């Protein structure tokens, strides 16, 4: 029994799952109706469904970010790309004579996705061909991208009234929100491409040692280029969802801080920022944890900005748990004197319940 418990605790998804369960449990204690799901008009409603629906954009951005981080890079521009793609799509729809026509909506989506792919390619070229540090290369687009998004919307908030577009964020399919299926579809597609083929291992090897994998015959530069394009595409779809949720595009605020949340989700999921390994399932869990945290904070009537305090504690706790140095120090203390009460994950749980 003890043996099995220990092997479970050492599983890489153990801590994320534990945190999620604890947060859900605390919420249920605080508000007994938290987990209740009801059927209304043939659709499921309830807080858990809401959490799933609202975490869909973050899951998408997180998936792209996971691939980027696994090559040892980072993509700070995803928030700006969300804003740009949402702005382009909304602009095209708002100018169309019939906003509800499917052709219009699909043209808008294709245009915005195309623009996002170009931006992703720009990031990819900067990192893989010119060889600029990823943080800096994507910082350029993070700064300039907000300006571009405002340029597209001309500083206004574009509101649209398009049924098919709104469905991306608020629509339902088989009683569940459509956004969940889109995120799930993207996750399955990426998982199939990376885990059922050699692609995932190639990406990991590039992250482990770019030069060595190049000498082993892998086109490292091409792989690095590719992950930035994929990340931009994921961000674009997330941008559609964000703007569809509110039926308007705001160049300033759409996707603000999503890059930080996405990086956080990836790190919580156990993917190391140093690259070389990635866990898609961990990222999805991480995104769910962040959204649950946000929802919890809202439900407890704490200002959304104050939620950042809790996020800060979670980031530090997760990083400490993952840091080999910290583990080594903790292990030494455990083996030494009596077991200290201040084991690593404790502060994390305490703060979450606070």
């Amino acid at each position, binding site marked *: 029994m003890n043996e099995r418990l220990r092997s479970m605790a050492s599983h890489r998804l153990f801590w994320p799952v534990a945190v999620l369960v604890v947060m859900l449990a605390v919420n249920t204690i605080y508000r007994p109706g938290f987990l209740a799901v009801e059927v209304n008009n043939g659709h499921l409603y309830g807080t858990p469904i809401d959490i799933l629906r609202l975490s869909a954009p973050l899951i998408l951005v997180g998936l792209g970010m996971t691939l980027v981080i696994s090559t040892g890079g*980072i993509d700070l521009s995803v928030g700006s790309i969300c804003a740009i793609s949402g702005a382009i799509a909304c602009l095209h729809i708002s100018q169309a004579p019939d906003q509800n026509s499917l052709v219009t909506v699909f043209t808008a989506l294709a245009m915005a996705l195309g623009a996002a792919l170009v931006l992703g390619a720009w990031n990819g070229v*900067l990192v893989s061909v*010119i*060889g*600029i*540090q990823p*943080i*800096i*290369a994507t*910082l*350029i*687009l*993070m*700064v*300039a*991208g*907000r*300006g*571009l998004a*405002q*340029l597209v919307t*001309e*500083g206004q908030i574009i509101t649209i009234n398009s049924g098919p577009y709104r469905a991306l964020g608020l629509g339902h399919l088989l009683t569940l929100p459509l956004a969940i299926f889109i995120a799930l579809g993207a996750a399955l597609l990426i998982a199939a491409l990376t885990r059922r083929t050699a692609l995932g291992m190639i990406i990991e090897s590039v992250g482990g040692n770019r030069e060595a994998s190049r000498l082993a015959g892998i086109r490292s530069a091409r792989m690095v280029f590719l992950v930035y394009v994929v990340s931009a595409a994921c961000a674009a779809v997330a941008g559609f969802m964000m703007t569809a949720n509110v039926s308007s595009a705001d*160049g300033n605020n759409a996707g603000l801080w999503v890059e*930080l949340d996405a*990086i*956080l989700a990836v*790190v919580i999921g156990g993917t190391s*920022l*140093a690259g070389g390994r990635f866990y898609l399932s961990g990222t999805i869990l991480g995104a769910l944890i962040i959204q649950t945290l946000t929802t919890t904070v809202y439900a407890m009537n704490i*200002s959304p*900005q*104050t*939620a*950042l*305090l*809790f*996020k*800060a*504690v979670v*980031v*530090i706790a997760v*990083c*400490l748990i993952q*840091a*080999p*140095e*910290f583990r080594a120090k903790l292990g030494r203390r455990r083996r030494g004197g009596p077991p200290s009460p201040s084991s690593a994950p404790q502060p994390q749980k305490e703060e979450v319940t606070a």
Partner: protein
Amino acid sequence: MSTTSLTTGPRWARLPRRHVPVLVTLALLLVMYGIGVSQYRAFSNVQVIFNVFIDNGFLLVVAVGMTFVILTGGIDLSVGSVVAMTAMVSAWLLESGLPALPVLIIALLIGPTLGFLMGCAIHFFDIQPFIVTLAGMFFARGMCTFISDSSIRITDGFWTTMAQYRIGDPRGNFVSVSVLIAFAVVLIAAYVLAYTRLGRNVYAIGGNPQSALLMGLPVGRTRIAVYTISGLCSAIGGILLSFYTLSGAPLIAVGMELDVIAAVVIGGTVLTGGSGYVFGTVLGVLVLGVIQTLITFDGSLNSWWTKIVIGGLLFAFILFQRLIGIRYK
């Protein structure tokens, strides 16, 4: 990197390579100023330059702190939030009736303390600076709204005096007290970087941390010190900002870290560390300030052009640093 090029060629090509980025920034600044003067008559007024300093004094101080961090090859994302938190805490303490001096001391202690803690986390647990300072950024921003959801006005006598006091001719050309403080910070920082042991350690660690360690330099202490310095500069910047706006607002200085990083990079500091000058950072801040002034003078361009131009300049300078052969890891 510091080798003087001895190849034959025109005289200008014999400049030390490490000076080239700063000189290019200087040239860019002069060209932009020239464009401004040729296009708008009012631009040649000296007060325009003074206003750039008055409006960007706090940015300058924070950018100086960031220069230290970037010189060691690190990055500090928390500066914008720490600036806001310092302004917020001082506004809050003043509102609750504390006299100006203790408030100043407390406000100036918060930033360095947070910086010290972040430096410790980075050094002792070997976590990436990016993530640690990201957590610091979340923490400081969260503290702001934790203190108050809305902005707090400052009515304290000392603060209003500092905000309104003009040095020089109040009707002609003048600067505010903040500008003098900013200059003092710049001079001290330039001295520390160029002539003290700490400054040389900063460059050594940025150049190659492994070699620095093998040379017996105190890598850990220096690394913690630079984040503490950055925290102190952010705290001073926060005080200057509260002089400037006479309030503490929870959402002020959002995204300021990007402007600061952009200013440092445009000023010629290499992001992998080891090369750059405080003087370059001053030029970088001035470039950003002049861009803003130009866009204000033009009137037909909207504020978002600032971001696009800054992004473009950032790209141009990074590309340029690469082309002249400054090493990136």
